[in-house]
């Protein structure tokens, strides 16, 4: 518990770094591009899946 209580406070330096940056907020935290890229890849798979799903739901086909 002591290690958690006496941890370094990094908020002031992060405030300076975040406020200087001119990037959009969703790309400002560390590793944002990696997270965004991974998310959008899975999102694209989801959208393709949803489109084909809606088609098979309308057609009423239970197997491809």
């Amino acid at each position: 518990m002591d290690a958690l209580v006496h941890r370094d406070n990094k908020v002031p330096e992060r405030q300076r770094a975040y406020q200087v940056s001119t990037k959009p907020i969703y790309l400002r935290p560390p590793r944002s591009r990696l997270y965004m890229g991974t998310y959008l890849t899975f999102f694209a798979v989801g959208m393709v899946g949803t489109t084909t799903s809606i088609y098979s739901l309308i057609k009423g086909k239970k197997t491809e």
Partner: protein
Amino acid sequence: MKNINRTEFQAFPYHLVEPSPWPILTSFALLTMTTSAVMYFHGFANGGELLTLGFCLTAGGMILWFRDVITEGTYLGDHTSQVQKGLTLGVALFIVSEVFAFLSVFWAYFHSSLAPTIEIGATITYAHHALIQGNRYGAILGTFLTIVLAILFTALQGFEYIEAPFTIADSVFGTVFFASTGLHGLHVIVGTLFILVGFFRIISYHLTDHHHLGFESAILYWHFVDVVWLFLFIAVYWWGS
């Protein structure tokens, strides 16, 4: 102040948000989740896989969206006193809508008509008071104990579901029992995650004795879930047994 300097400062206390990808991405993630849930329930091919993906996309979108809100509040100073008032009102209205969601389940139960109980409201109240008094150790300890008890609650509920002699498809009692305790259980899991975020923000020095809206909202939500449990316990486990 000269006019040229005046233009560099915001003349009002509100937060004008920047364009964000999360509303549209989360909306479509929810579309994926609900469409695939229909597929899964009706036995269509790949419904289960797509449902898992939809759930992960929704959860991922929420995590990255909330990360941006934390950035705005903690690092960019966008959450002024006025903005905090609006956020608090939003949380209160959200909890009122939750009250009505549970009211409908209770309505179903009373119309038609086993027990883990833990006092987890006490430890979170201790943590909250410790935070306000600037007692970092107490805030961390109280929040940590709350999370441990919350996980214990969910585990006991899980054992109860496994051991129950009836299923959701057995009688009106079975249906409403699993619908109401399941809805409550989901809220306990969400509340646990909500407090867990507060815990990590306390140990990262994000929260101060006078500015900790996210944590306070988690506490409010937690008390709500606690009160619902009291009603559920009286109605389903005590009166219903």
